[in-house]
């Protein structure tokens, strides 16, 4: 009987960077490879579910998918020894039967990575292949937001609800699996300290040297360079590059005053809690 550790975040919040780091940690050498991400697959991979179920899932909509996922994760945990890692963008919600979609009984731990929604708004726009920030700001505020729910084409991902940015943060913060919350901005500012905390929390043994080595091999510039050289399989077709700027505070170069205040109005409670606003409620 194994258990699952979730690497969870709202999209465009550093999930891939963190996964690349964890997948690189156990390897020696100096290369940067995306293939290693297979060791932390997506919780919403349609192929994985189809393999285990033995049936075509294209007829399953959001409700049917959410109904089966708790059993799926419990089944996977029961069939494996040790720890399974999964990446997910799910908000921490229940399905129609009232069961947590990511079941508590199959869970070992969870890491929740969070990023300033101002930067998320910019990054998510580019990710979706446009610069219509207002449209993305609407998406960030939509409590019913769902990814991969197209009904006229094949999607590699199963439909999954991400809800609004604030609700995503709140549902994870209040979830019974009590994740370790890590801010993307802190990972950027103090990578060694933060990654050391993360490995300690996950009970992964790592020496100072292996930590430093993995951090160096997964620097944003390196990831960007590898994507330019060999591409990145998780890049959506509409997006020019998965790894674009990776910086914190880039929103100042893109968002209008009105767009900033729309984001603050919608998300100030969680932003305040996470230190993205100063005492007066102004963006830091």
């Amino acid at each position: 009987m194994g258990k699952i550790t979730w690497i969870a975040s709202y999209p465009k919040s550093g999930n891939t960077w963190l996964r690349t780091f964890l997948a690189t940690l156990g390897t020696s050498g100096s290369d940067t490879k995306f293939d290693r991400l297979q060791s932390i697959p997506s919780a919403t991979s349609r192929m994985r579910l189809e393999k285990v179920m033995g049936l075509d899932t294209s007829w399953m909509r959001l409700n049917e998918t959410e109904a089966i996922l708790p059993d799926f994760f419990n089944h996977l945990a029961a069939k494996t020894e040790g720890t399974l890692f999964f990446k997910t963008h799910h908000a921490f919600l229940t399905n129609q039967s009232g069961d947590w979609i990511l079941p508590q009984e199959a869970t070992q731990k969870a890491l929740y990575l969070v990023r300033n929604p101002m930067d998320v708004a910019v990054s998510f726009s580019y990710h979706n292949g446009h610069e219509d920030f207002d449209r993305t700001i609407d998406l960030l505020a939509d409590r019913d937001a769902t990814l991969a729910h197209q009904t006229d084409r094949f999607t590699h991902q199963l439909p999954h609800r991400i809800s609004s940015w604030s609700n995503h943060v709140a549902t994870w913060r209040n979830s019974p699996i009590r994740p370790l919350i890590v801010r993307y901005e802190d990972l950027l500012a103090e990578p060694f300290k933060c990654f050391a905390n993360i490995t300690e929390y996950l009970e992964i043994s790592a020496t100072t040297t292996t930590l430093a080595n993995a951090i160096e091999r997964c620097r944003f510039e390196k990831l960007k360079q590898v994507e330019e050289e060999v591409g990145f399989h998780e890049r959506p077709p509409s997006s020019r590059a998965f790894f674009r700027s990776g910086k914190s505070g880039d929103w100042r170069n893109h968002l209008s005053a009105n767009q900033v205040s729309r984001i603050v109005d919608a998300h100030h409670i969680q932003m305040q809690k996470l230190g993205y606003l100063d005492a007066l409620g102004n963006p830091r």
Partner: protein
Amino acid sequence: MSFAYRAFGLTIQSEIQLPLLQNDSDSPDIEIRYGKCPQNLGKATKHGLKFEANSDEFLLKVDGCADYYVTEGKKVTIQPRDKSESAESIVSLQLLGPVIAALLFQREELFLLHASVVARNDKAFAIAGRSGSGKSTLATALLDLGFQSLGDDVCALSFDANARPYARPSIPSAKLWKDSIELLGLEPEGLKRIAPAIEKLHFPLFDRFSRVDTPLAGIYLLTGEHGLGDILSPLSAIEGLSAIKEHQFRKIIATGESQQRHIFSRSVMLANATTIKSTHRGPKGTTLKELATHILNDTERWER
């Protein structure tokens, strides 16, 4: 009321209508009936996510839809959980997917690949690949270039005494997403959805369907990605065996030593008897017709 169909070289007598299949009048090899399924199997040796199985029995329970019980490679019992018309379309999907796979595994006659199959000049070619890689779309495009279909989504292979594989006619209807229908220049008008909530449609292939077992010449393995360089690259024998293993149809369902042995021996025969070519979509901007033409030209050079 009962209906008779032919697929996989078998005559299927069914109480449920399966309009995707061709009619038949022979004495039945398989019976599909409504009835009561067991709650669980007393002696299950495999516990899947929604199914249980041993070497002679298979029980699948799809919540809010139906339960299915398969025995002796002959009998299928369906116990609907939802009697609506929309559920019926999903029942027929599951019947022609995991349920028929379980039955064929029990019979140990055919080897199943997750592939669509086309044939021309007495040579069959399997178009294999993961879900969403474009198997049905490419196979349907090849029908416009003079091929006949031997089935969509599942390639059923028998082997002769010299271990040569033959593709046996499977399902004469392609499942195509709306965007593929548009790409193929087909008319979606009048086509039935495979399930109520999605725009994936049944495209009947009856008029371009071959009813003859055809020697399998090769397998095109779709990556589903665009790429640079040669569109086709042959796999080594060992890569081929591993690809065959990866692309078996619903292999999770096969249960018991005897079924596993049958599958393994057929995988090896298939790897020895055919060439498998990894196939990408060509550089960005390559049209479906260009890709299909590229495959057509390649099949003409294919030696057996």
